[in-house]
């Protein structure tokens, strides 16, 4: 048995713009046309035809996680529909080795009039579970979904969140060899999303092959081992994860971090003193602890940034504030406290962090590590400032407070 889980070879898929004939009245002229002009060969485009996928090839090894990224309409869903046998390629072929399971529209099989319990059996068998499997995992499914006592209530009485959570929980217990996931991590609240991410990491550790489609680059970067970027149905970038994600940002016209192919440092933890989703008064001070570990000797410039919408508000680095980079040797861990007074207009801010090198490349770049909401208080007006403090440097030891006045960098 080979180690290839999925092999796609030059797959093309033709779609038609506009309406097809779907009543008998329209059929007759279309047949007449076909007889007069002859059927069009599969590889040719008619007036209203376009290629939803053109010449897509890739291979996924067993146990790998492939990210499929691209902007809306790039052909991601079409590709997934081909992989899940819903569509047949116009040209080209593909093979899959192993049972394919999909987490796409997890509530499609639900019937609103049936209870949660009935829907578990129904939806479970629709996605390909055996009754014995469903019975065995029934308690686990109910547990994971957090539906609890509502299991005997018709799902039409469920909130949309409960509905989605139950659907996800059923699909999550399918235990396929190849799992296809399309933007389902946005299901449920924060706690449930955390549960889903842990579950996916467990799957990957157990050797499940994963195809992951998402617009959330942080999730793609943390879960996948390689990626392909689709644009107008064609693969425009594939292979190295960081390169593909970079290309995605470039195509979107957004600034993109120049990620290094070989990362020698990574963030072990990034936590806020008051949790990851905080509401503060203007001027209130928060401390974020950034723990970094090095896998080889390196000079690093850890960074801290705050953005609102897509616009950066504060962006500063260790080197800019201290005048020299952070030197770490193999295996060393440093912990940096970024302390910031949120003297900012009321609104929702995203806190991100990165680890750069002195040449402008990044070992790691992450947005939305935390969300800070600044409340509205008209009395407070002022400048944003960030104070940097090094708590436990493996190399650098002296604790240092940079004065607020010269520390902030406002863009």
């Amino acid at each position, binding site marked *: 048995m080979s180690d290839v889980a999925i092999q796609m070879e030059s797959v093309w898929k033709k779609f038609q713009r506009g309406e097809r004939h779907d009543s008998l009245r329209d059929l007759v002229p279309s047949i007449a046309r076909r007889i007069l002009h002859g059927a069009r060969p599969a590889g040719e485009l008619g007036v209203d035809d376009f290629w939803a996928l053109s010449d897509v090839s890739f291979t996924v090894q067993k146990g790998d996680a492939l990210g499929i990224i691209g902007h809306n309409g790039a052909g991601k869903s079409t590709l997934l529909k081909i992989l899940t046998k819903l569509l047949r390629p116009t040209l080209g072929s593909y093979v899959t080795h192993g049972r394919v399971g999909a987490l796409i529209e997890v509530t499609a099989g639900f019937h609103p009039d049936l209870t949660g319990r009935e829907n578990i059996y129904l939806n479970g068998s629709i996605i*390909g579970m055996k009754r014995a499997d469903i019975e065995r995992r029934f308690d686990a499914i109910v547990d994971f979904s957090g539906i609890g006592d509502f299991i005997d209530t018709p799902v039409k009485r469920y909130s949309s969140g409960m509905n989605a959570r139950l659907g996800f929980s059923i699909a999550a217990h399918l235990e396929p060899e190849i799992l296809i996931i399309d933007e389902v991590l946005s299901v449920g609240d924060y706690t449930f999303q955390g549960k889903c991410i842990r579950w996916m990491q467990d799957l990957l550790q157990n050797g499940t092959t994963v195809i992951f489609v998402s617009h959330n680059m942080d999730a793609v970067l943390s879960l996948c081992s390689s990626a392909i970027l689709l644009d107008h149905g064609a693969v425009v970038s594939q292979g190295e994860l960081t390169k593909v994600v970079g290309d995605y940002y470039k195509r979107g016209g957004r600034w993109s971090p120049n990620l290094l192919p070989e990362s020698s440092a990574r963030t072990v933890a990034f936590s806020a003193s008051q949790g990851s989703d905080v509401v503060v008064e203007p001027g209130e001070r928060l401390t974020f602890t950034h723990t970094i570990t090095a896998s080889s000797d390196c000079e690093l410039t850890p960074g801290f940034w705050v953005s609102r919408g897509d616009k950066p508000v504060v962006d500063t680095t260790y080197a800019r504030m201290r005048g020299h980079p952070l030197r770490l040797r193999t295996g060393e861990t440093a912990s940096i406290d970024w302390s910031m007074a949120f003297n900012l207009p009321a609104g929702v801010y995203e806190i991100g962090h990165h680890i750069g090198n002195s040449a402008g490349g990044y070992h790691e770049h992450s947005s939305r590590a935390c969300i800070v909401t600044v409340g509205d208080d008209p009395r407070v007006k002022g400048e944003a400032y960030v104070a940097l403090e090094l708590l436990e440097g493996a190399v650098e030891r002296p604790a240092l407070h940079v004065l607020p006045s010269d520390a902030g960098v406002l863009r």
Partner: protein
Amino acid sequence: MFTDIKSATIEVWEHRELLEQLTRRDIKLRYKQAAMGFAWAVFMPCLIVLSGLIIRFAMAQISGQTLARVDIANIAIKGVGWAFFVGALGFATASLVGNSNLVTKIYFPREVLPLSSVGAQGFDTSIGLLTLCIILPLLGVRLHPSLAWVPLLLVLLVLFTTGVSLFLSCANLFFRDIKYIVQVVLMFGIFFTPIFFEPAMLGPRGAYIAMLNPLTGILEGLRLSVVEGHNLFYPMSVVVKGVERVAWEPWELVYSGVCAVVAVLGAALMFRRLQHLFAEYV
């Protein structure tokens, strides 16, 4: 050709639990929030029998005869069979389009959707058949050895219905006008199928034309073997107004059987060949 049918059979067999779940769903949904509950299952056949009786009563009035108890039994048994055919087709025709959220989202052999409609209708019909088992003896029907034909006839009825269901569900997915055509055809189909009358009443030529309908052989077979106690192996004739007329020919059964098998195989083949287009066209 045979590989297609083989793969369809294998795949549906592998998904038999799904078929069962969908059938259960269809049955549950028919009776959930329905005030009449299981009475629905006998409502439709009762209506057919009632309308048949009115017609027979009118016919009896004109010809100056009386309506016999056995006529009720004749119409009841054929009415239950017809109700199965009509009900299954009505639900199956809409089964693929009605479940388009499943057809476009999740892969499974699509045959299970029309099959589950037939299955759910089969459940209703079995309630109807049980009711018949109670009513028929009251109408003077006795046990005969010829009842042994009933299982075969029911199998043929299910096969033929399944074939037509597969064909219509698939056709309706591509052309939405099919369901309107089906509605109209089923509404008047009862007059083109000998339910309220026997083929012999149509005269010698008329009887043969009526026998071209594959359902004639099956439903008449049911009537003759249950009510008349006739062994379908032999032909039968009745005397109408002093003239002997054909009421049953064994080849009718062969013809119906061939039609049923051809219908189910042909429809399964067409369904299999087209199902990769379903998600795109639905």
